[in-house]
């Protein structure tokens, strides 16, 4: 059953139609996706699961506009990004997207607050507005008291929460996360999931999270299972 056909009239943030992607390895083309289609409603928190090499990261990269499809349509909030130039995509990411990495990827020489502020360098706004946004983002992830700490003075879980604040600060429509709890212990992972849940529920963010962890997947509204470049089932969580 096709997900898009099942929910025809809803407000979709993501629409993928007949998306194909392959990599060239030596002289052979290795197909990752062949005419993949998928839609995700605005405000949904979606988990993406599947075995290693099934294409989860590739799909996330395509959604983030940091990798390009060979063919097909890819629209976010009605905006087709599959034909954008590199600089068009860069601009689009700055305005539309928050990205959370498995290994946090904070700048080691910047404080937590400065790391959170980083995406705001790409936006024109007053210093006061900037401060307000950074404070709010740190508040949301419960790290207001760690604003002046460097990443190495923070635990893994705290670093990931700073990374979430960074993904959040420019108020993007879409947040993508590649195994955000993959490197964390259970309590830290739970804290991260709780925050992601909050972003979807309270701030209306659409979230796509790649995960191997069934517990993490249960925090999402919906889990998509990817296998060899195809969705094998869709399960809506409680």
């Amino acid at each position, binding site marked *: 059953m096709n997900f898009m056909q099942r929910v025809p009239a809803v407000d979709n943030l993501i629409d993928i139609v007949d998306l194909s992607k392959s990599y060239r390895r030596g002289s052979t083309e290795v197909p990752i996706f062949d005419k993949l289609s998928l839609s995700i409603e605005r405000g949904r928190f979606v988990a993406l699961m599947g075995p290693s090499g099934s294409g989860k990261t590739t799909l996330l*990269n395509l959604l*983030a506009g*940091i*990798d390009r499809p060979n063919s097909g349509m890819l629209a976010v909030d009605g905006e087709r990004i599959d034909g954008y130039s*590199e*600089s068009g995509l*860069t*601009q*689009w*990411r*700055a*305005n539309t*997207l928050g*990205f959370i*990495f*498995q*290994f946090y*990827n904070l*700048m*080691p*020489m*910047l404080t937590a607050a*400065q790391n959170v*502020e*980083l*995406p705001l*360098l*790409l936006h024109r706004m007053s210093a006061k507005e900037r401060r307000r946004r950074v404070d709010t983002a740190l508040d949301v992830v419960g790290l207001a008291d760690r604003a002046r700490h460097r990443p190495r003075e923070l635990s893994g879980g705290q670093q990931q929460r700073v990374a979430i604040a*960074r993904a959040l600060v420019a108020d993007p429509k879409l947040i993508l996360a590649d195994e955000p709890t993959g490197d964390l212990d259970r309590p830290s992972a739970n804290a991260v999931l709780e925050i992601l849940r909050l972003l979807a529920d309270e701030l209306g963010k659409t979230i796509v999270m790649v995960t191997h962890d069934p517990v993490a997947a249960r925090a999402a509204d919906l889990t998509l299972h990817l296998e060899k470049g195809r969705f094998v089932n869709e399960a809506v969580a409680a």
Partner: protein
Amino acid sequence: MRETTLVRRNALRNPVRMLLMVGCIAVAFLIFGVLSAVATAFRLEDQPGGHERMMVVNRNGFQQTLPIAYARDVARQPNVAVSSPVRMALVYWRQPKDIVSAVMVEPETYLDLSKDVVKVADEDRARFVATRDGLLVGRALAERYGWKRGDQVTLQSFTDLREDGSRAWRFTVAGIYTAAQPGGSELAMAGHFAYYNEALLTGRDRINWVLVQGRDLAANDAMARTIDAGYANSAAATRTQSEAALGRAFLSQIGDLMLIVRLIVGAAFVVILCVVGNTLIFMVGERTGEIGVLKTLGFSRLRVARIFAGEVALIAVAGAVAGMSVAALIVSALGTALKDVLPGMTMGASTLAMAAGLVALLILLTGILPVLQAGRVNIVEALGRK
């Protein structure tokens, strides 16, 4: 936070490497700063009046001598207004380290020809002209040795022997001159050729050059050819040229010095270009993952390149400022120590301007590859590399 904060923090994240790079660059600029100041001090200022005044010298260089008779011949040339024979004398006072460069001259013609170089009060001039063993001494030299008008001084010649077997000439300080131009030398002196010459055992009646002032500047070249043609087949052939041309000949030797300076400075810069360039490329390679993250956040190729360019510029400017500051200290100390031997050793505006140019070039040459490399980083590959 601004982009410059990011640049600064990036630069300081590996302080040891940063210091090494800054140090490298500083040393190159130190070499440049000190050598330039020394080379500048060697350069002759454009001598005023030099264009009209001619000099008749030995074809083999002014260290070789000419018979005094040449001076009388030259004076009879139709285009010659004033001419004056000059003999160099290298002498010292009391100890050999107190070297003074002196010229033995025909006072009146010499002073007439030297108005643009030395300024002499009328009384001093009259006294010098009238005193057979008189000396006209530069003000700075007189101050250094505490000489007053009327003082008797005995000078020893390094090169000339007297008939009585000694090397000592007694002189009377007859007058003091000052430089006619600001910054001109006041460390030389002049005596009477006739007085010096009559005591000589060897090399009597020989001079080093004849100064000539032509009546008609346009006729100077023809006059020079006539004079030189007249001595072409004699034991001491001459070369007659303007002081400016002589200055240019001297400058060409200084030109060689400048070439050596440029080679040394150039070598130093090529070395830091390689070292710093290599380190920067390595640094960008090391931060590929971070560049991928920045680009994922929406930092454009240009912006990433700009951040790295800023870092390169910061390192280069820090090195240049450090190097030139130390060079300025050294130059000022050297200038004080060598103010008599090599006056005018300062770090001039032209040196600073050149240093600024070098920094720009350095940033461009060391920065271009790493900056381009940073801009080109592919996000997918960069993020895969964890």
